């Protein structure tokens, strides 16, 4: 009874100590260990939990190795027992098949729990913001369908608001990663994926493509600026007032392989994101063609002739239906 009472706080202490070590021992340049949002924190918890669990096996193994190699070394005068025929022990075998199984069961449980949890938006009262992300060769285009502004290589988000990033690519597959906000997700041509992230502290955070896309890949970094809702609204107004519009021709220009700096646009062509997904084969997205008679097999060009804004609305519905995509 007493022992179990003692043990539990010990374990919590150990976990806390390790977290403290991981987080404080390493400076702010350890981005993954200094998350600023609920998603990154959830993932850090799992990182710490899995570290502790694997150490339960690693430390004894290393200690045993040192002890055994030292104790049973072949030196004259070594008085340690020598039993060349001892080669079986049911008890020991059960122990070391059993312990890893228990550890995997525990870790597997928490893994599953978190995996399902991260598909949903972080729980909050704030109304989520949607940002559409397109990875290009070799730059990032961000579109705000609600605000009708767009940016290149930087993205502003309000603090405390869950952001749904919808991800696609109009170039080779990349991966959208902002380590301090949370884990990454691939951007794939012809696919629209989604990733929930949220910042709960204002600041500028490093983001980078994480999947190799060729020559300019190393320069595919971007900044995420988390600001208050008020500042965010001001920023939107400012962009609307002072920046040029992104035209279709401008997008075609942007799409060309190049490394560029940041840019802001006061507007973008209606439905550009969906058109991009569709032009790159988006008809294979599960759910995207639901309720659209005659859409299968049509090329993007053929579709453009018949479609317009209402189509885009329908696609969005389809995408909502496939909302279980991603995490």
């Amino acid at each position, binding site marked *: 009874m007493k022992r179990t009472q003692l043990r539990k706080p010990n374990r919590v202490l150990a976990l806390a100590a390790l977290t403290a070590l991981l987080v404080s021992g390493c400076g702010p340049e350890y981005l993954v260990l200094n998350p600023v949002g609920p998603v990154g924190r959830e993932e850090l918890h799992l990182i710490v939990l899995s570290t502790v669990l694997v150490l339960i096996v690693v430390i004894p193994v290393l200690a045993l190795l040192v002890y055994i190699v030292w104790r049973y070394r072949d030196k004259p005068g070594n008085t340690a027992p020598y039993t060349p025929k001892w080669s079986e022990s049911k008890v020991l075998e059960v122990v070391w098949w059993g312990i890893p199984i228990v550890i995997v069961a525990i870790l597997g449980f928490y893994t*599953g729990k*978190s995996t399902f949890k991260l598909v949903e938006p972080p729980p909050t009262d704030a109304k989520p913001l949607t940002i559409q992300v397109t990875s290009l060769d070799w730059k990032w285009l961000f579109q705000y369908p609600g605000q009708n502004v767009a940016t290149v290589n930087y993205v502003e988000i309000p603090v405390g608001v869950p952001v749904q990033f919808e991800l696609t690519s109009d170039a080779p597959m990349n991966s959208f990663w902002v*380590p301090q906000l949370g884990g990454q997700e691939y951007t794939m041509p*012809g696919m629209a994926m989604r990733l929930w992230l949220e910042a709960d502290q204002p600041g500028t955070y490093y983001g*980078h493509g994480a999947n190799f896309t060729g020559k300019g890949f190393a320069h595919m970094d971007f900044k995420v600026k988390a600001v208050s809702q008020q500042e965010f609204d001001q920023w939107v107004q400012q962009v609307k007032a002072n920046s040029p519009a992104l035209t279709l021709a401008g997008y075609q220009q942007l799409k060309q392989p190049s490394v560029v700096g940041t840019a802001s646009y006061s507007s973008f062509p209606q439905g550009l994101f969906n058109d991009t997904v569709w032009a790159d084969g988006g008809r294979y997205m599960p759910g995207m063609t639901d309720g659209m008679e005659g859409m299968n097999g049509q090329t993007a060009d053929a579709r453009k002739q018949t479609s317009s804004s209402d189509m885009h609305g329908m696609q969005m519905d389809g995408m909502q239906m496939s909302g279980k995509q991603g995490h």
Partner: protein
Amino acid sequence: MPESLRQFADTYLMWQEGPMIWISDVLILLTSVGIVATLTYFKKWKWLWREWLTTVDHKKIGIMYLIAALLMMFRGGADGLLMRTQLAAPGMHFLDAEHYDQIFTTHGTIMILFMAMPFIFALFNIVVPLQIGARDVAFPYLNAISFWLFFFGALLFNISFVFGGSPDAGWTSYPPLSELGFDNGPGENFYLLALQISGIGSIATGINFLVTILKMRAPGMTLMKTPLFTWSVLSACIMIIFAFPALTVALALLMLDRIVGTHFFTILQGGNPMMFINLFWIWGHPEVYIVVVPAFGVFSEVVATFARKETFGYTSMVAALLSISVISYFVWAHHFFTMGAGADVNTFFAVATMAVGIPTGVKVFNWLFTMYRGRIRMSLPMLWTIAFVPCFVIGGATGVMLAVAPADYQYHNSYFLIAHFHQVLIGGVVFGMLAGMYYWWPKMFGFKLDERLGRWAFWFFNIGFYVCFMPQYALGFMGMQRRMYTYPADMGWGTLNFVSTIGAYLMGIGFIFIVAQVLYSIKHGERDLTGDPWDGRTLEWSLPSPVPHYNFAVIPTVTDRDMWWVLKEEGRTEELRPKKEDIQPIHMPKNSGRPFLMGVAFFVAGLGFVFNWYVLAVLGLLGVVVTLLRRSFEYDDEYYIQPEEIEHVESALGRL
């Protein structure tokens, strides 16, 4: 004419690429001239053809695999050092993006397919028949074909560096980046064809050794009396046979996309690049077990021998090997948890990945308890085995951490991942293959490798390893991605990268010591006159070193798991010496030059397809068909070694 010559030089010889290529060209030319001159001067052409190029002897094929593996380790290692040099400091201009991309692509491809694979095949070939009491593998001719397909595949891959350009889409070569639309150079074709050609060889090797182990064990050697290295080869062969066809299909479809314009993996016209990624990893994940499981086999043999103790938990070891070969098929999607395949799929693959760690962990405990209450000698094979344990245990632990899908969203494609897989592949495969090389070297060549130089190599390589890769875990947490040819100074990544580069160079020095050790030992290495230099336990140590052409003058009858050890214990070693009255004529396969020629034909066809030179391609394929047909109508491909000759050889060895 000069104009067309210049164009040729620019297109194929990449003359405008600068001094690195020029130096390589000159070095390759000098090496080739040197080899030809040496062979001619010492009149060794005939010897080369008769003894090596046409051989079907598993021991010689094994030695050729070993030489190739060491050469490729040098090439892949040099690639690694170039990359580490470029990354030593932020904003370096040692390599540009294109060269860096090519180098990390060739580094990965060579190390997995042209270093690790031939290294395990070297040990398969050298050890398995001797360990199970057989005179050769089940299909010696096919074995030679496997080797030459590997060899010419590797050659095709390597010449891309100086002829046409190296692939640069990463060793995983994901479309659409590897499709014509984004990558129209011949490098990607080199990658596809070289892997395809050597992959055919690998499948054949898998089948060959599966049949050899199942059908050719000495009388009395039941499966549960089979040595653990042979068991590990069996497990690896099962994986090869099921996994490699997936790679064959993936490569073939991508090749069709690039060469004849199909749309299997293009985004438009109904293709789906995700299919390539799935196929690639359905092969790719079992592949890492294919290369590491034979290393487990080596460790099992080495630990029992150098602790002078029976393997602890033999049955459990076999069960672990077989469960690894099954579970390894259900983990491939952990290479792309971030592809958005839904929480249910990710959870399944996460748990399966953690589960494959269980049998692997069990093996570590069994090795530890084989040493427990033994008498541990620290010879080179044991040294590498002991170094393997902490390295692999930490690498395995970070593997379990990577398996946690949500955490993987943060590790994926970062240096954390890079550190992890180098730790399991170097700590597991390279340490294992080196341990195996040191262990069986006397059996191959009749002398031991020098211990002193070997220890220098060991310490340089090991310390270098930790200095190189431990900082990379930290870099992963700092958000550094893989495959960046440069990085900005303000991220704070500079110091750790510099440390990592120092480590890489220490490993390079370790490799130089291994080379020095081999060269020194050829002359000064301790000769092995007994055939049993380590006081071994299994059948191969009952034979003289090097082993006679026919292996066993008389096939032994097996009654125990550690047959040779038991006979030594009971003073019955004489039983394995041939007796004159037992010697029968030995049925052996004849040498043949055709496997080599078939390799040449594949090489020609491959080169033709790389550059879309269809005449050459068709000529090459015709060559393949002709060699196949010739084989089909060959009836005189075996001969008998007569008892007099066997008696002569055995008495010269003092065994009769």
